[in-house]
């Protein structure tokens, strides 16, 4: 079994805004493209043009319907990838040390040369964030684009994960969640960012910003009857009255 570092210098991770994510899958495919060509083995696809295409993806978007007691049903788009947990059970379960958490930034990685493809880590991860690559027989997972974020061959502005760079709605943010003054930590504080399944005790680094309340437009008096929503005040009921009002209103212009 593999040991986690006592502490990490930084806690790099993602903040994902569920109020803004439109569910477009841009992050999914950008990730697939970058990580097929880069870190480790390519993300393979089995039966890609056939009856049951299945491939390795490090990031997927799920959609869930929410049906509140009052009001209309809602649809939440929920992107999910490795959350780079502080207490990552996928690391401690690894029999070969292939899975590890980096001391400098907290990124959880798989050293593919040591991975025996036993799948214990995928079993241990409560989030389903690891995928076995069927062609290579090694475990694949989000690397937080460790080969981008420090890459001196990329312009400085591009040294961020591919999913963050591509997100059209700007719903994905990257930074050091161990630094309370970082932009991402500030965003989490302002918007009430949440852990995914905190009861699992994994202390995920990635945070989710919850959807803002929906369908709040006042259409009826408040329940205690103290206030009615502001409504337009009529200036006329029919065209003749309107034209009379119009003439006066034009005088005031």
């Amino acid at each position: 079994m593999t040991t986690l570092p006592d502490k990490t210098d930084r806690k790099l991770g993602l903040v994902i805004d569920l109020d803004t994510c439109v569910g477009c899958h841009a992050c999914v495919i950008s990730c697939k493209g970058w990580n097929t060509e880069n870190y480790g083995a390519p993300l393979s696809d089995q039966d890609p043009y056939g009856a049951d295409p299945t491939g390795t993806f490090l990031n997927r978007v799920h959609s869930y319907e929410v049906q509140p007691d009052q009001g209309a049903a809602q649809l939440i788009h929920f992107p999910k990838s490795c959350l780079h947990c502080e207490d990552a059970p996928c690391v401690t379960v690894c029999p070969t040390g292939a899975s590890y958490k980096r001391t400098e930034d907290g990124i959880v990685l798989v050293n593919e040369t040591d991975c025996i493809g036993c799948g214990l880590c995928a079993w241990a991860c409560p989030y389903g964030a690891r995928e076995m690559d069927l062609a290579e027989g090694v475990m694949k997972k989000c690397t937080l684009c460790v080969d981008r974020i420090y890459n001196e061959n990329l312009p400085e502005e591009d040294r961020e994960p591919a999913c963050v760079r591509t997100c059209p709605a700007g719903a994905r943010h990257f930074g050091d969640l161990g630094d309370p003054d970082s932009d991402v930590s500030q965003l989490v504080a302002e918007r009430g960012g949440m852990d995914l399944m905190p009861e699992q005790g994994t202390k995920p680094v990635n945070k989710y910003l919850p959807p803002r309340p929906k369908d709040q437009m006042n259409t009826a008096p408040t329940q205690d009857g103290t206030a009615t929503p502001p409504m337009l005040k009529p200036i006329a009921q029919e065209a003749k009255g309107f034209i009379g009002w119009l003439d006066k209103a034009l005088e005031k212009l």
Partner: protein
Amino acid sequence: MSHQQPKIDTSPEVSDEVRKTTCYMCACRCGINVHMKNGKVAYIEGNRDHPVNRGVLCAKGSAGIMQHNAPSRLRAPLKRVGPRGSGEFEEISWDEALQIATGWLAPIRADHPEKLAFFTGRDQSQSFTSYWAQNFGTPNYAAHGGFCSVNMAAAGIYTMGGAFWEFGQPDWDHTKLFMIFGVAEDHDSNPIKMGIGKLKERGAKVIGVNPIRSGYNAVADEWVGITPGTDGLFILSLVHELLKSGRIDLDYLARYTNAPVLVNMDPTSSEHGLLMRDADGKTLVIDRNTGQLAPFDQPGVRPDLAASHRHAGVTHKPVMHLIAERYLDPQYAPEAVADQCGISADKIRAIATELARVAFDEEIVLDQEWTDFRGETHKVMKGRPVAFHAMRGISAHSNGFQTCRALHMLQILLGSVEVPGGFRFKPPYPKPVSAHPKPHCKVTPGKPLDGPHLGFVQGPDDLALDEEGNPARIDKAFTWDNPMSAHGLMHMVISNAHAGDPYKIDTLFMYMANMAWNSSMNTRGVIDMLTDTDENGDYVIPRIIYSDAYSSEMVAYADLILPDTTYLERHDCISLLDRPICEADAAADAIRWPVIEPDRDVRGFQSVLCELGARLNLPGFVNADGSQKYADYADYITNHERKPGIGPLAGWRTGENGLTHGRGGPNAEQLDHYIENGGFFVEHLPDAARYYKPWNTAYQDWAVNLGIFDSPQHYIFDLYVEPLRRFQLAAEGHGDRQPPDHLRDRIRETLDPLPIWYPPFEDSGTDTDEFSIHALTQRPMAMYHSWGSQNAWLRQIHGHNPLYLPTKLWDAKGFAEGDWARVTSAHGDITVPVAHMAALNENTVWTWNAIGKRKGAWALDKDAPEATKGFLLNHLIHELLPPKGDGLRWANSDPVTGQAAWFDLRVKIEKVTPPDEAQPDFAPIKSPVGEGPDHLEWKVSE
């Protein structure tokens, strides 16, 4: 074991070279960085400098690598050797292919040019393909706008000189309330996501009007789950509320619209309902300074919205009076429309209140001086921070034109067009309707057509009719059936050609249009028309030439295939002459260029047209000595001049003193400059020109200088669209050009010069109690038309398309997960898998667009879910309305523009025993390219 970590290379080489071009994975035209390794495409990302996408890229764009290497790519020209539809082809050389095409087309041009119907689908080179067709001399040319969103485009141009998407955009940086109608992933993919992201970042609100709460509507703060086809009624109710409360922008209406223009109210006059004009043709208003008539644009005039004018016994009322009289009628009160729209009266009031509150109580002011067309200088730019966007959901109905008009009227009454925080045009828009060409249809054998095919009619005189009054065009565009069909009616071409109505054709020539599958209404019927034979055993449509890059369903139905390249292997220009990539603050155009050479015997379609045009001796495509004028499309892009100094690309032209932009001569190095600049050209507006563009002298001068216009084109918005009234007058019996009697009532009722709402036509031809459910499609964000299914990555996201049913229907019919349903319309039935969705209008079902595939197409396995469980709603929709017993063929189209009314569809639904496969099933077609590989590990570097 104790913690240990390996040393890894965090700075690997990313690529050998980055080549910047323009995406074509949908119609959005984003800039992309194509990373090359070992001479192959390694990775695609967004171009940060690009005006459209600023570095971001959607799923489709990033998956372009899988489109480029798709096994469905055609490999060489094909000649059909089996019956049509069999998929039996033999590969031939380009020389033979071009000889065949020339052999078919040259005699047509010499004798009857109209016997060629050339329609170009999802073509981003329409200024080029239309030029080719014009040189050929056929009147039968259009692209796919007629079955896409012509209602949106035409309503916008006729009302305010531009519409949404490529014509304009919300003021994302200033708007405080954004309201969208019928918007899924249709058009403007990344910019809308980027814009919504900006609004969310600063807490601005979004109201989504859509029967389906997915995508943008899922993140909207307020969802209005409207009943399909009733958006116009809802909008007119909002207008009713705003008028009733006087919450409209009177100053804006008086200055910048035809609300003060006087209308002839004499019902006995042949000019009844026309606008009062002076001897120069200028529309007239009453000047509040003098109380006298004055041309609308006279310096110093203060147009009066209130005063009527009586002259020679005839009353003339300002348009504003007609608006008040119509929309204050109780029929538009919230209570009167609530049930029909599926929106409570309280909610309608609340939305009207909020629109008015934000527009007028949260007015924004930019400290920027500007001068208007009457010569008045304004110290500031005042803005109404309410912006709207709409797309196919309101446009693809038979009441779509008037619904889009109603929305523009709402925007204008709020004073929120071309102002800070509102909706802004993108150059070359705004552009008054009078600055557009009119349609041309005069055929002379052996000669070019007398002008551009498509345009904007001003009245009956401009219709495309022959001397006997019959339709001049095969699609009957610009006829009494649909006078303002500015984009043609591609969806009627095959049907009309098969029926010989208005005449028979010889050759159907198409590009990028999957008419034998998802691009046609009534797919089965269209397949039968394409294969039907006459009494001699000859095909009713004698010859079909088709160009596509991929093995689409349509390929099997052509006689000659001209294989196109992928978008990474070709030249293109996204031109200011056509549909450029401009932003509200800038004019911009872009190119594609071969970032990689084809590894197959394929050619860019436009380059093929250059050679075919020369072989046919088309004047625009040969030199004086008869030799080929343009070696290929790149040569055309560089050297063609539409008029002196104006070519397909505006950047890096040759001026008198070196390089210049806009107006200038051709420059042999122009494409190199584009490549060096990242594949695009952009020229920003001066600050004083950024808003109020139709009336702003700084903008107009800038546009003239850049070559967008030859002279300033100031105009006012047409709340009242006089050309519509001219058609009504004809229907009332005025004038020489008269509609056929069977269309008089419809023209009187639907071509109203002020926005109206009427129920979708399908409602009157079907039993709405029996067919009580509305059926829609939406385009997924990660898939574009049929092109996506060949994409190994995208089809793992959208390989299945169940029919989504609302809770009420799901429960009433006792559906459970895994069930199937038979869905029946007045036209046909399909049997398909279903799924439950709660966030859905309770009388609406829907599915993803164009996921269903025919077996054998797109190099997919015959057992691919797209072919076994995937389906199209197209089978339920006919291009004609059900017969009315009058023997006439009534198109299932908008009566103003001819737009295909896809979303009028009504169905009934029953639970059935699951069949083996979705029904109807079609026999497999033989693939000209075989099937794709059974595994992929697509890494180009080792």
